[in-house]
């Protein structure tokens, strides 16, 4: 695949039905340079403008913008735009950091395997005669291919609280569910795996996939599409599972109803 330069714009707006106050937020929306992607021309706007900004990093390497708006306001928005120059040949995302590897080896809240996933894992490793000769990345690729066949993409049957085992039992779900089940399988196999949130060319929403640790590096796999992460993807954040990668967390005072609009535009710059 050839290298690509992608222009991206993420817009999220929440409209409140009446003014709210004491609104606190924490936002993880900043894509960073990896071995595969180089970010430039980055502009991040969080508003309305009276939002007081603080910044920090979480332990998974994500940058967080946080603050609070005490005055009444009726909307909240995040805009992230920039350019990503993505390699078409280097699939490596990042060098492994031994110190941080422990987080990704054991089941996290959303990825605890139940009887269903454990049984499926047993079946998968018994079915493939050469399984034990594969390296960790190839094992991940194998799980991805099988899961892609056995699990159906259906939206609306699961929600953001659905965990890996519940989704597996349903046999249906969305990218978050594919990623959780996949992480659960990898960790059962002793392969460190992590959850990734990002954007994909041509999609109108944010997307989720996973990375596996193999031979010194993190590599991205997209089980929803049965693809290696390549020049078409922009990584935004990562963590143990969905809960570590929530783009916008917020709390406020008021009885307002919320309407959230999200738009993601990713296009190749030719």
């Amino acid at each position, binding site marked *: 695949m050839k290298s690509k330069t992608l222009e991206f714009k993420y817009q999220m707006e929440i409209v409140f039905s009446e003014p709210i106050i004491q609104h*606190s937020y*924490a936002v993880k929306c900043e894509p960073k340079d990896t071995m595969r992607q180089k970010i430039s021309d980055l502009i991040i706007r969080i508003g309305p403008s009276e939002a*007081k900004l603080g910044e920090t990093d979480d*332990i998974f390497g994500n940058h967080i913008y946080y603050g609070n708006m005490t005055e009444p306001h009726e909307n909240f928005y995040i805009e992230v735009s920039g350019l990503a120059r993505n390699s078409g040949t280097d699939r490596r995302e990042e060098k492994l950091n031994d110190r941080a590897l422990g987080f990704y*080896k054991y089941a996290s809240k959303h990825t605890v395997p139940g009887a269903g996933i454990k049984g499926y894992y047993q079946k998968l490793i018994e079915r493939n005669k050469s399984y034990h000769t594969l390296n960790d990345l190839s094992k991940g690729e194998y799980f991805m291919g099988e899961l892609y066949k056995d699990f159906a993409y259906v939206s609306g049957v699961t929600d953001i609280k659905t965990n890996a085992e519940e989704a597996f039992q349903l046999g249906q779900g969305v990218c978050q569910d594919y990623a959780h089940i996949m992480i659960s399988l990898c960790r059962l196999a002793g392969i460190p795996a992590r959850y990734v949130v990002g954007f994909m060319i041509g999609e109108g929403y944010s997307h989720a996939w996973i990375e596996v640790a193999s031979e010194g590096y993190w590599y991205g796999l997209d089980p929803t599409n049965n693809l290696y992460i390549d020049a078409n993807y922009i990584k935004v954040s990562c963590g143990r599972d969905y809960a570590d990668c929530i783009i916008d967390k917020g709390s406020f005072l008021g009885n307002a109803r919320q309407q959230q609009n999200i738009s993601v535009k990713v296009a190749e710059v030719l």
Partner: protein
Amino acid sequence: MEQLYKQSEVVNDLLARYGVKFGIYKNGNFKEQLFPFDAIPRVITKEEFNYLERGLSQRVRALNCFLKDIYAEKKIVKDGVLPEEFLYASSGYLAECESIMPPKGIYSHISGIDLVQSKDGTWYVLEDNLRVPSGASYPMIARELCRRSSPGTFMENKVCDNRNYASLLKQVMDYSNTGGINVIMTPGRYNAAYFEHSYLAEKTGSVLVCGSDLFVEGDHLYYRDYTGKKIQVGAVYRRISDEYLDPMTFKEESVIGVPNIMKVYKKGNVALINAPGNGIADDKGIYYFVPKMIQYYLGEESVLNNASTYLPFYQKDMEYVLENFDKLVIKDVAEAGGYGVVFGSSFTKEKKEDFIELLKREPRRFIAQEVIDFIDIDIMEGDQQVPRKADLRAFVLTGEDTYVWKSGLTRFSRNPDSFIVNSSQGGGFKDTWVLSQ
């Protein structure tokens, strides 16, 4: 001392007067209940306390070293003393606390160590509570009222005063305070321990607050008074659990926390008492390693005994557990309190086989312990003295020094057949005397 026993009712009336209660939910309704007090104290001699003091102080110092290490370099894992999975797979371990150094490097400011004494007189540590251990206020106020009800008893017996708890707590808060006022943060008046929260606030001169009274601005934590003035907060003795502390870091749906308080904490601009993430040190699986920690961090032999514990995770222990299954008590490390505790002898043959299957499949999930036959302490029932099971929660405070409070909460079970001494299950409490001579 007989004189004091006769005053039991008087003391209980006084406790009622001062609203010494705990809250419980029954069929979805909140009810306040008096905490029944038994006037026969647990008496600990000076020599015995010296021993306990050495052991408890050592234990808490080691646990603080452990927490400091585990959220930073993790030497104890690298050196092979603690297997990695016991850390990362524990629900008490919070990755969000990685690399945060709490003010003055203290993680467990207030530690509640649960002990029992076996019939041969040996003390055993059953549990370390390093999150939000409660209960110190009860013996503290009970002592005050016992002295009022039976002054003669305290003239005849030389008992160390335990009413200094509030000033010890205040010293701990002041020592860790990063600049600003001290507050005690409660989930609200419908919490089981609300009496304690409000009483300790009164006695330490701290401001009693709910999460919604505090807010983060810039890199600091503030409290807003009724005239609109902002007041900086330097230490929060929080009586809510980690997962509710900060909706922006932990459970987003929490309405009793303070959004972004963890960011302020991470920058070193407020002390959280106790530090978030302490749950890793009171995990049932980690308990097994505490004597090893004492050896590892302090280079000392553990003064106090753990109950003999086996980790099926280790092959040798698994063999022992399988051979001696019927005489052991098995605990699920994922469950809190009295849940997930089963006696090996209570299984039917079929259930036992199923359980052993589970144990072999998930060895890390369980620990097995020898059953301790612990001593009874008398309580008054009417005008009769009858023996009941009782445990002891000792309180260890860590500020500039580590200090073992010369008292403790002794809880007893009212039911003669029960080993469960939990207050929400109808138990009562006693004063704990440490003799000064």
